[in-house]
């Protein structure tokens, strides 16, 4: 989060690697250490400090062991020095598709801020991964620069998560034009204009106008500068029959957007409402909790005041 004065404010930086994903524990892949259990443990393959090996070399190392055929997921961590993108490793994964028949999950970019800030991560065209792995259920990517997912057509994908500090609108449009009948979890972090978000509410319109993903249980529109507008659009949408959880956290939600949520008949049917990192007033927080006792309204933020205007910030941009 950056204020005009340039002070680094206390923010939700991505400081830690996931210690578990898809219900499996996650460990770092260290070539010198034997992997004991490909079946029940996920390994994060990433370039370490003093590693001379590239990401694609490390991936090859991981796949060398025939037991790797059992792995349920591949996590790619640090791609290398700052501007390196994962293209060679992604191509290698696609080429190795027949050797990973049980692959349920792919996480491209488990990178913490110390390794590379989210807005500096160089992503690439990941679209070929969906066609290569028909058994895929979980897909997660971090970093918006250069990210391309394409229009996805996948019968088994249950969870799609895109984390970024600034997402190109093309990605959102592609996702909302995709055919994902099994999708239960959709999480998008549009981010801010400063770091590549060039879209608007318009790009999300298809999501609120038709039941694109009839099995959706969780909708996350997080880390956004248009949280209020998204809240309003959601509030008046009538297409989320089976939804359990709405997540508008890490963004710029204010009383305006929260009021729309309070009025909404759809929100009343939810089982979970995650609004942490928000700009709500005390009064509004109380009203939200009254109507939705299960709501998460932690991490109250206060706007920065400069130039006579109030400025609200997303949690994760740099």
């Amino acid at each position: 989060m950056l204020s005009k004065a340039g002070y680094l404010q206390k923010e939700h930086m991505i400081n830690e690697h996931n210690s578990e994903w898809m219900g499996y524990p996650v460990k770092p892949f260290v070539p010198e250490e034997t992997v004991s259990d490909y079946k029940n443990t996920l390994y994060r393959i990433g370039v370490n400090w003093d590693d001379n090996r590239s990401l694609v070399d490390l991936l090859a190392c991981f796949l060398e062991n025939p037991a790797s055929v059992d792995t349920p997921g591949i996590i790619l961590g640090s791609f290398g020095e700052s501007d390196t993108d994962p293209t060679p490793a992604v191509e290698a994964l696609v080429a190795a598709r027949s050797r990973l028949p049980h692959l349920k999950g792919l996480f491209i970019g488990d990178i913490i801020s110390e390794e590379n800030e989210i807005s500096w991560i160089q992503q690439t065209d990941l679209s070929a991964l969906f066609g290569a792995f028909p058994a895929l259920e979980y897909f997660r990517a971090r970093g918006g620069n250069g990210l391309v997912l394409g229009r996805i057509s996948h019968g088994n994908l249950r969870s799609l998560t895109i984390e970024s500090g600034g997402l190109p609108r093309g990605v959102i449009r592609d996702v909302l034009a995709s055919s994902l009948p099994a999708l239960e979890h959709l999480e998008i972090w549009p981010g801010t204009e400063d770091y590549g978000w060039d879209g608007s509410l318009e790009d999300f319109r298809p999501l609120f106008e038709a039941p694109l993903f009839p099995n959706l249980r969780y909708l996350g529109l997080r880390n956004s500068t248009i949280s209020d507008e998204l809240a309003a659009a959601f509030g008046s949408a009538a297409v989320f029959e089976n939804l359990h959880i709405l997540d508008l956290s890490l963004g710029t939600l204010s009383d305006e957007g929260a009021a729309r949520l309070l009025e909404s008949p759809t929100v009343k049917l939810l089982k979970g409402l995650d609004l942490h990192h928000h700009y709500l007033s005390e009064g509004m927080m109380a009203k939200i909790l009254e109507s939705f006792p299960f709501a998460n309204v932690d991490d109250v933020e206060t706007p920065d005041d400069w130039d006579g205007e109030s400025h609200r910030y997303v949690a994760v941009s740099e």
Partner: protein
Amino acid sequence: MVLGNPENRRGHFFAEAAAKAGWNRIIPVSWGSFLRSEEVLEDALCADSVLRIESPGEDFEVERQLMQLGYEAILSEPGFASIPPEKIRVLIPDNGQILPSRQWFHGWSKTLRQLEKIIHRRSCVPMTSPCEIARMFDKAACHHLFQKQGVSTPRLICEPEGFDSLMESMRNSGVRRVFLKPCHASSASGVMAFEIRQAGMQAFTTVEREGDRLYNSLRIRRHQHIQEIRTIVDAICRHRAIAESWLPKAGFQKGRIDLRMLVVAGESGQAVLRQSSGPMTNLHLGNRRGDLVAFRERLGEPQWQAACAICRSAAATFPKALHAGVDLLISPNLRSFAVAEINAFGDLLPGIEYEGMSTYELELHRFDGWLTANSNPPLSHVSTNGR
């Protein structure tokens, strides 16, 4: 005999520990009075007196005196920032102002050399040799020493003269992220974390500039414009600085962490997990102590032992120091370690215990054994009473 600053709580903690350990004759000598007149200390010392040298910090008068002492030497180094005696005389305490640390270091080394002579003349026993203290205050010298002894550290990129020289060295080494540190300062004073990429650059630092004066603020600022970064880098380099590879830190419980370990008499002692949201973990920057017990569990015992071992080997490069505070970096995959810094006065860790002892109590506890093992000739007649 304790040579320190009376207002400083270090002396207070030490006195407490000494009383507990039965050292019943502690004579404090202030840095201020010592710098005014060496006889104050020399006359009070006798053969086999134990001398504890404490930090000269947190006393503006002492800082001024050290700056004065360093003036002559800094004159022969025109590339570095300096303040002439007449200006030093009228300096007022300006909270957070960074005074030319190379000049300060010259004054400090000169003082330590004097102490070395006095110790020799009086045949007394220093807890840490002044010579080694001086070396610990020179980050460039420490880098070379660690490299020679095979102690793992971030790669030293260069000793830049300024922004342009730094950029050139980074280009030549193919390195895009560095930590720029003044050689002779401590506590993240004047430190900058700097990274470049195709689309631009950014620098994190507590350093603020007001005209040609540098200040340490308590908040880390981010700079993204080359002009401002250039100005600050040039100013830091005028203190004499090193640029080393910026190794990403491990994350734990939502923060980035590193480890401060105190090595006492060659053995492991107190440890603190330092946790921050930004690139600098120093505790006074609004950072916090992390959950060391939980972290040790996450790290696993073999890795914990490896961490202790590398800290001991770093401290072993200073065999005449009773204690050394080692700052250890841990890689995000928790497999690699590197020594970021070694501190001569790294034992101010209030509330942190090792085997039920404070840092000062541990030092006193291990002192006799260490002395016997290290002294030449052996001082078998030295006892803890009546010092």
